[in-house]
């Protein structure tokens, strides 16, 4: 396994609604290595987005620690954290731009600070090409299909060539073929760029292609494990000797 890039260690998080505590995460531990796609499955409201926000340092855990490339996020200064987020962490969200931007401008948006308009457009154009969406550069979000939106969202998240990509429900509303195309693209980016991907999904089929699958249930991060031997015995346990003809 390659070096661990993101590491959550015994992270707990609760929200308070008046006097009642809503425990979202309890002792959640997770490692994501460079070149690895980790899927976290959980039903709606299970705490997946909170997990992603904590992984990005946008929310502080009540207990436990989050490390990026060995550095404890809680110990980073605000400016160091902002730089890390800008340079090394990409987000793929389902929601598009709030304004009526052309997709080239939308993908270029996070690049403007560091690269100026011309440089940003060049890189955005390359990001759209990489996801096979060059033809949509001039289109608006509202005119795109769900599959196209997913690909543009990945281009937006990848535009700054991050080391870690946090992906929130990338295959929502997609059919099987589009879903597999999106997952195939993510896996090829993981391989080509030695990218670490932490992906939250509410539907298990979307998690089947991951390198590591975790399930979020009752605030705990579980690892699906092999079941005990079935009562009737495995079909391949049947005696190997063939019957005579």
């Amino acid at each position: 396994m390659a070096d661990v890039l993101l590491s959550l260690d015994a992270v707990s998080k609760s929200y308070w609604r008046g006097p009642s505590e809503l425990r979202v995460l309890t002792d959640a531990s997770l490692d994501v290595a460079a070149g690895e796609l980790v899927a976290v499955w959980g039903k709606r409201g299970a705490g997946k987005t909170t997990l992603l926000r904590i992984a990005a340092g946008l929310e502080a855990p009540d207990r436990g620690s989050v490390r990026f490339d060995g550095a404890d996020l809680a110990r980073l200064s605000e400016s160091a954290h902002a730089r890390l987020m800008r340079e090394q962490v990409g987000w793929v969200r389902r929601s598009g731009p709030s304004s009526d931007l052309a997709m080239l401008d939308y993908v270029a948006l996070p690049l403007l600070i560091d690269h100026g308009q011309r440089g940003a457009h060049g890189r955005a154009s390359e990001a759209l090409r990489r996801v096979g969406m060059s033809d949509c550069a001039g289109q608006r979000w509202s005119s795109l299909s769900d599959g196209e939106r997913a690909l543009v969202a990945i281009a937006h998240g990848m535009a700054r060539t991050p080391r870690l990509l946090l992906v929130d429900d990338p295959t929502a509303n997609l059919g099987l073929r589009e879903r597999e195309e999106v997952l195939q693209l993510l896996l090829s980016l993981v391989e080509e760029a030695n990218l670490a991907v932490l992906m939250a999904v509410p539907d298990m089929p979307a998690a089947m292609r991951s390198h590591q699958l975790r399930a979020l249930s009752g605030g705990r991060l579980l690892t699906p494990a092999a079941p005990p031997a079935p009562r009737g015995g495995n079909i391949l346990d049947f005696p190997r000797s063939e019957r005579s003809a």
Partner: protein
Amino acid sequence: MSAKYAVLGLVIERPGYGYQLAQRLEERFGCSEFAPSGVYSALDQLSRDSFIRSAGEMGAGPSRRAAPRTIYEATEEGVDHFEAWMLEASPTPPLRDELHMKIALCRPVDLPRLIDMVHGQELACMGRLHDLKQRADEDPADPHEWSSLMRTLARDAEVAVWNARIEWLQSARELLEQLCEEPEGASSTRRGAAAAGRSRMGHLQVL
């Protein structure tokens, strides 16, 4: 349903002998849990109905201790029969789930045991997903290739079943544990069950 049509379909795809077909059945329809003997019963029945026939034998290897293996292929009649089955409407299977019935018929005093059962089912379903994940790792979907797409579609059906069941089990467990924790009228048994539920979650994590 029996393994008959699944075995016939596999023989039509590619001739094979009994153990090979059992392996292929396990790979393709592992979650269907066909009984081990089902493949051989299906081969017997399909042979009697003249839907398959022997296409020769395969040697038993250098030891010559084991009997030779019969390789089966489909007959024209078998292909016609299979195609007719493919076009038939499939019945909706009855949902006769023991756990549903136990929940519907349980009494408050059964709560601790019920939480245990729900938890056990959740673990078992996680195990099924683990198996399916392994199958997906061995046979990744190619969205541009027909047979891969169809295999993935069938696998998705299994994944969706376990996905939905785990979600329901989680909701059921949350409710049952809430009932255990309700202070008003809660018996010591209920409070004990809640504590047991929490410790079980700790157990889940280490799996």
